[in-house]
């Protein structure tokens, strides 16, 4: 699971063996034979949707219709309509409800979710609180407020990074770190570069004019590296050796990534949310990376007087994107291999002021999709608090009766549950997030 392990299983055959052997400390013979790309059963590619704006999924999910103090757009609040899967949705579909679980006691969610069709069968909501109240805390939220520890159980790690570290080898990924299509993410506490979908598309479709075949070019390049950077290899600082190691690895990955992507990017037309999710699906399907980070938006940073009008428009757009993404993932046969999960710096208040929905560190609702998931609602919303707050969780049932996860720990519980749903084994879960149980979602 560690870096060396990743290097071992992802060794590229075209690389200069002497360079790799010396840099990784592995026997050259292993590097010549050590290529494996097996995928471990139960592991899922994760599409992590992040928002530093703070999204109001809590505003129209389960529990949001359980108090008269909780606000929804009035049917005539907005002129916005969207045609999704042959049906027209409007503001009325954010104030009317549909029963999500179909039990004796209806669990009402906004009717706009019906736009997702059968996707709802693999959808779960997870109420929690991030305890953050301002946008600059997004980086802390990405590290689950410090609750997500590093691979060795020390320090802290962003959720996207931890997921990648845990699943890269098991998924047989070409790259060991998240691919960031939106927002910003750190891997091992170092910022990663963001690559918008169209940038990736352009990159792999660009033509080159060299007459040297790529494998031959790689051989010549590695030969030069062996000779010119001998001193770094033999006497360099640990930082230098590590970077040269990364450089060599990235060269091999580049060939692999480009060859896999080039035939798949036709449907990428822009950098919008739908394209991000489609590109993430392609990345997962091609086993390029264990995690792709995308954006999501159902309210945005909603501080405007016509807040619910904006929310209506954005939410309907998001539903349309989700539906298109679902159809795309199904058609690519990848729906069962992936997990979609949201991560927001905070949720938004259930009641609306003159300036839209304010920040709510006491309630955020995670939205999850994936072929292995069942319809589920974890946690709950206290209907007696007009702005909304999450309730403690029973990690066994996912309900709020006899809870063993305090509301303060619910964010850590959510993150750990996401990791569990992606197939991370229990011992690793406990190393990452000790002392807080996970809720089984899959």
């Amino acid at each position, binding site marked *: 699971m560690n870096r060396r392990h990743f290097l071992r299983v992802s060794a590229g055959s075209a690389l200069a063996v002497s360079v790799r052997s010396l840099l990784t400390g592995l026997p050259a013979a292993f590097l010549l034979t050590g290529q494996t790309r097996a995928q471990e059963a139960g592991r899922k590619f994760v599409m992590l949707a992040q928002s530093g704006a703070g999204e109001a999924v809590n505003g129209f999910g389960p529990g949001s219709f359980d108090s008269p103090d909780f606000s929804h757009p009035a049917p005539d609040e907005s002129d916005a309509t969207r045609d999704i899967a042959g049906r027209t949705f409007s503001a009325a579909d954010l104030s009317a409800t549909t029963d999500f679980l179909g039990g004796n006691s209806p669990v009402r969610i906004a009717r706009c979710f019906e736009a997702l069709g059968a996707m709802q069968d693999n959808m779960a909501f997870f109420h929690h609180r991030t305890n953050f109240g301002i946008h600059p805390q997004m980086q802390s939220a990405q590290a689950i407020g410090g609750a997500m520890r590093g691979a060795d159980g*020390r*320090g802290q790690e962003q959720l996207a990074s931890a997921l990648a570290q845990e699943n890269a080898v098991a998924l047989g990924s070409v790259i060991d770190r998240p691919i960031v299509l939106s927002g910003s993410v750190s891997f091992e506490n170092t910022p990663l570069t963001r690559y918008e979908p169209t940038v990736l598309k352009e990159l792999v479709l660009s033509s080159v004019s060299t*007459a040297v075949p790529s494998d031959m070019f790689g051989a010549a390049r590695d030969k*030069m*590296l062996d000779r*010119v950077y001998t001193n770094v290899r033999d006497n360099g600082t*640990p930082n230098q050796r590590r970077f040269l190691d990364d*450089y060599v690895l*990235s060269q091999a990955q580049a060939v692999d990534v480009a060859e896999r992507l080039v035939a798949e990017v036709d449907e990428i037309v822009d950098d919008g949310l739908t394209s991000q999710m489609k590109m993430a699906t392609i990345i997962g399907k091609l086993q390029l990376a264990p995690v792709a980070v995308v954006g999501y938006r159902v309210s945005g940073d909603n501080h405007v007087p016509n807040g619910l009008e904006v929310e209506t428009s954005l939410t309907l757009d998001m539903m349309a994107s989700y539906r298109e993404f679902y159809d795309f993932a199904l058609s690519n046969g990848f729906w069962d291999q992936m997990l979609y999960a949201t991560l927001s710096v905070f949720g938004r208040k259930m009641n609306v002021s003159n300036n839209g929905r304010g920040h709510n560190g006491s309630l955020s609702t995670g939205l999850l999709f994936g072929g292995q998931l069942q319809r589920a609602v974890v946690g709950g919303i206290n209907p007696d608090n007009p702005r909304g707050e999450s309730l403690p969780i029973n990690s066994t049932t996912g309900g709020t009766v006899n809870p063993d996860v305090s509301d303060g720990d619910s964010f850590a519980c959510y993150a750990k549950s996401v990791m569990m749903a992606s197939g991370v084994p229990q011992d690793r879960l406990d190393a990452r997030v000790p002392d807080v149980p996970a809720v089984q979602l899959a």
Partner: protein
Amino acid sequence: MSACFRLGEGGKVVALIACLLLAACGGAPSEDGGGPAVADVSTGGGSGGGGDSGDSGDSGDSGDGGDTGGTPDDPPLSRVEQHAQTMERMASNDLGCANCHSEADGNAGRLNLETGTLEELAARLVNRVPASDSCVDELLIDSDNADQSLFLGLVTPHNADQRCVGKMPLGSSGVSDADYEMFEVWVDGLVATYNEQDNGDFDVGGGRGGANDVVSSESAEPADALLVLSRVKYLIHGAAVTDDEYAAATDAQGDLRQDQFEELVRTWLATNEFREKRQDFFILALQQNPPSSNYVEQLRNSVPVTSRDVIRTLEASMWRTAERIYSDQQDFRSLFWTTRHEVTTATLLTLKMLDNPTFRNRLGRIDGNSPGNSLRRAIEGTYTGRDDPVFQSDISDWRTVDLRYAPDSTEMRGPEGFGDGANAATLRTVGPEGVVNLRAPRVLCSTPAFFQLWQTNADNRFRAQVNQCLIMALGRSFSAGDPTLPDIHPLPGVDLDQIPEGSECMGCHKNMDPMVSAFEAHFDYENHRFRANSQEVADFYTEQNGELFDFDPEQRGRPVPFDTFPAPYFSFEGVNEPGSNLYSVVRSMALHPDFARGWAAKVCQWANSVECSRQDPELIRIADEFAASGYRLDRLFEAFFTSKLVTHTYSAELTDFPGAQVSVARRDHYCHAVRVRMRESRRAQDRTSDDIDRDTDICSRNRSLAEAIPSGGNIRGATAFTLPTSISAFASISVGNLCSTDLSRYVGGGRTFRHQENNAAEAVDVMVTQLLGFPTQTTQYAEAYSSLMRTYAAYKKSAPLCASAAELSDALDEDDPACGLGLSELEAMQGVFSQVCQSPSLTTLGL
């Protein structure tokens, strides 16, 4: 919401990190005193009642320190037991120390008060310096004067003395008497334990990636001379180190000659190439680079190409102003409050548009077609198109203009003149050193570009801008631990309903909120445009809207609002300054004593790609030199690039020490270096009469490919830049394709590398010396030259053909390769160029 801050530690450097509005750091002391039963005894000889320690005896005197909750018959606690009890107490919800000083915090390089043995805590705390810029003169626990330790000073309930950070737990006035006595005994035990040890370094919580303690420049070692020279010249100039430079700056042993090196650095800093590099630095540091050029809130539709041309002038205005201040060797702090900005006519026209509120119809909706609102409409009404020579002139006629704050000015009020060219014509007549009056003050932190990058709203009330401006000036943000109380009551701008007196939220808001009126008095929350500054002005614009949209504002329309705001007040880390307007607040920010260290840290991070410790003695020295020079930025660059933070490294382990960093050359660095090195390659071949820039800028020719090379930026609230350092597969694809596209433009007859038969050796020599950057005296030169010549030979060898990459690899072990690829000489040389162009020497800093 609540707030906390952390005392952190990283080896010799201790970090004090404020965490803004984070989870509770601890509540107030318990009403009953709350402390556990503690005997004031330590077996390590610490005296009872907080007396002097240092006795390392192993059989402590029970002392007579009074009643601390234990009974007279209780056996004395051993030092270890005392430690365990104190740790348990600190972890309790009552004190809540561990909420902000957890083990996880410790592993992240901050102070861990949650876990650790007595010995580990002694190593963590005793004689350790906090890293807070305001705490550099303090020791967490002073072994020679324990009762004066910062730790005890922060928790004592016995005085209200202001230390470098606020009382602990936050929001309290110290712990209970009983808890304080417990801490006194514990501290004595730690000191005694410390004195028993050999005071060797302990691992007190690593930095990133499993690295151990932060390495100070004092323990770093000289780096390889060629590495230092290559990296510094790459960063400053972009070109390769020449043979003469290498010879001059190294001694017989190959070590760096500091005096000669400093001379070279001064030479490189004086070049036009460094002027180009400075621009990149300014664009990053001045936060004028929003990701989108569609300024929809301020200017409605600014998507068309002509609008983008104008937007570019808005975004270039401040780095050009910074460049003028730099070139004139002025006090760089003045950039924050200067009214003399570099502008074009188009810049002025846009600023004048924004010097009006948005024009709205009866329903309060913004009219997107009004030339007073829409940049697109204003441009369409003023110019015939992008090819209009007047337009081209108006976006390029840069000059220095005094943007004078004139709140009562009535110039260009209303939309008239923006859509017919009249206002542009007037502004065109404003020459160099001319004056333009503005009703809303425009400084570095209130430019349209800054407002596009950081947006506010009615709830945020420009707090985002205040924070980002502070970060720009000082590289620091508001801290709940800042003990600086504004010397004004009531606190202006603080909503006591939301943020009650004594709440933990007040820790930051007491300093931040009094500054927001500097912005909100002049700009509206929604569109960041001029806000009516009197009832008369509001009435004027209300009338305007009625006339424009044909309604009676008194009967049906929404009046333009007018609000009053208190005068702003600057209060931050030991400085209190009453303010009068935006100028005075940003001036106070820039005049804060932390300015020098903040900018030294910015330069250090930009160059080394890692957040540099503001506590490092070398960084402090550099900052002091900067301040002593009268804040001349040229002196800062010189002091930094000749410092240990550049010339030294650390070879024991993975480390965050600046000089030891290895990073991918980010887009600005790489593209600049390739461009310059291609130029130098032409010069090396006596091609001085050619158009030197023709076909040398591979990034500009392939912008979409270059986009995928990592680049830096700013994240809201982050006090340091966000700089990717690792090389990814996508970056490799990008550089690989950049270096393999349009090869005939770079290699061939008349091109930068004039390949002709029989001059391959010359072409390869130039590639090695000018592109790879190896002086001919070095072994790297010999190896690279030999390797590339073999590659060239193999590529063009026509028989036998190599059947596989492995065969080619074997063939490259010989000067006369056993097989080849059968390429033409030109194709072979192009292949060699492609390899050089994407080699680590060009794509990496620090190898």
